[in-house]
């Protein structure tokens, strides 16, 4: 079923060439994504999650550059595409969805104009039929009285409705791949749940694969089929979601899962991970988790390769050797 694979990232390297040295923001990561599948990428701030996303979109900011590996999208290597070709792909096949919808809607145009503009790029049809399509899209994302809403400006809608409009725009592009990069600060639980359900709706309607970038294991548990844990620019563990929660293989994943308070149980003291997240310009030579790892021993002075713990479940830790 290899033709089911939408995205295949291999040994991706995106580095920043700063005055003070090279920052290896993404340092050799590999993963695959199938149609309709959701991959969660979790990890600390600065571990390279967003840069992975920008690399796929071909939008790595200066002074960063993707210097190695390949990103195969529907069988073609995106790293060999021209800027113009990448723009087309971002306009249709691969979409970034923002959790904060205010940043992606233009405040000076009505919702109807913005939706129809997107649709016009896709369908060369008269305005009247574009309008019908726009109404259907708003109805699909469950906006009540969609006809009346077309003449609204973004500020006349509530946050939740704006989210739905952005969702409607994403669906109109019939994407193969959605990338959602969650901001670090959390939304209200009830609003967040609305947003997660909207993404699932979009996925059901379009069959798109989703990459969900998050700090929150609760979101991973709710949304994802597979999960990749990043630490210091590398994927240190990758697995099916249930297997990850049941049998975390990497000490970092294990500690992270334990340190999250749970609404359904009481503990006296949370098990915490001591020390600080590493700084990418001063990484240890060996395993980058070594300074914080309770299991570290001499072997860990050498960087661990990827070991398979079970089919589809890998860990970069010498304990799995």
């Amino acid at each position: 079923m290899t033709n089911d694979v939408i995205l295949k990232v291999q040994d991706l390297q995106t580095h920043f060439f700063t005055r003070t040295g090279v920052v290896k923001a993404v340092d050799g990561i590999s993963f695959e994504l199938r149609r309709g599948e959701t991959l969660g990428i979790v990890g600390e701030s600065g571990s390279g999650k967003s840069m992975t996303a920008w690399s796929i979109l071909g939008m790595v900011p200066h002074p960063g550059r993707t210097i190695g590996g390949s990103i195969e999208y529907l069988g073609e290597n995106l790293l060999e595409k021209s800027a113009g070709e990448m723009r087309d792909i971002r306009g249709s096949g691969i979409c970034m969805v923002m959790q904060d919808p205010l940043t992606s809607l233009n405040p000076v145009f009505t919702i109807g104009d913005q939706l129809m503009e997107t649709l016009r790029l896709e369908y060369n049809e008269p305005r009247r039929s574009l309008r019908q399509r726009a109404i259907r899209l708003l109805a699909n994302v469950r906006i009540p009285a969609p006809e009346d809403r077309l003449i609204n400006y973004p500020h006349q809608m509530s946050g939740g409705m704006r989210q739905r409009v952005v969702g409607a725009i994403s669906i109109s592009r019939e994407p193969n791949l959605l990338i959602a990069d969650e901001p670090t600060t959390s939304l209200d639980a009830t609003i967040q749940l609305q947003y997660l359900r909207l993404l699932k709706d979009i996925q059901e309607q379009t069959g798109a694969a989703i990459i969900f970038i998050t700090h929150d294991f609760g979101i991973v548990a709710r949304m994802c089929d597979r999960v990749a844990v990043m630490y210091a620019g590398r994927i240190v563990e990758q697995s099916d979601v249930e297997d990850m929660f049941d049998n975390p293989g990497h000490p970092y994943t294990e500690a992270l899962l334990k340190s999250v308070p749970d609404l359904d149980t009481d503990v006296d003291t949370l098990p915490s991970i001591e020390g600080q997240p590493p700084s990418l310009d001063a990484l240890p030579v060996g395993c980058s988790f070594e300074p914080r790892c309770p299991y570290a021993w001499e072997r860990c002075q050498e960087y661990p390769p990827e070991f398979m713990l079970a089919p589809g479940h890998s860990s970069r830790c010498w304990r799995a050797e």
Partner: protein
Amino acid sequence: MVTTATPNAPATTAAVEPLVRLDGIRRHFPVYRGNLLRRHTGTVKAVDGISIAIPPGQTYSLVGESGCGKTTTSRMVLMADAPTEGDIYFDSRPMRQFTGAERRNFRASVQAVFQDPWSSLNPRMRVDQIIAEPLITHQKLSRSEVRSQVQELLNVVGLHPFHAERYPHEFSGGQRQRIAIARALSTRPKLIVLDEPVSALDVSIRAQILNLLKELQSTYELSYLLIAHNLATVRYMSHIVGVMYLGKIVEESPPIELFTNPQHPYTKALISASLPAHPRQQREEIVLSGEVPSPLDPPSGCTFHPRCPFVMERCAGDVPILKEYTPKHFTSCHLYEDGQTAG
């Protein structure tokens, strides 16, 4: 003495005077239109009649959607803002009647730690200056006394003595939050307001800071007023939890009871929306219809009625009153009157 060695120890409040008590607090903001000729066009009822008590040595947490009035409440507790109605008592004295000396004592006794450790510390000050600043404004101390207190505070929050000479940008988020905590502790406060103290921090750092806060609470018998979105964090930290909706407390209870037996429909929706910690664990998700209404024009009767899945006829007309339906568990909802129960 109140101990907090065990989490969520039953509130020993019955006999103990609260450290801080809010009595019928309202904070209404006038709203104006127009730039030249300003017209008074309405009132935002940011806080609309709340009464809560924070016991010594314990944590009172406020939860609720953004805009429901949590921060406004905490600003009044910090005396950064004054209620338009009602009284706040500190050590049984109403703030309105504070003498100059009482006010100075209050400023030292109540401190705050905010969400964003990136913007809450002055980037041009060294860590020792940041920590010593409140200390110097409240006490006359010699330079060597200040230095030794700063060293002690750094030690208490798990930082090193050599950190004193560095600037905030040289620290990670978790370390900056430790600096903010050290600064807040410097005046030996009785109450610290914690407004989302860990939500801007990395997941792997949050547990460290939460554990530090708990440890400090039991060592120094601190009271906390905690504001947090993450309900699991609230359960871990609190002795009493108040659920706010549109400027009012709609439910209040010790956390275990609240999270295992929520009564108010809004609390139920809030809990159902918080994500379980394991993929096989399912929660019934109550999806609320409609949006949070504006505090400028709150709905009549029970302000939750336009979104409530259990709404009844009388809810649009009668304002429900916060009542103790089971011991220490207060709810304001018509469903529980006349011995009825919510489904």
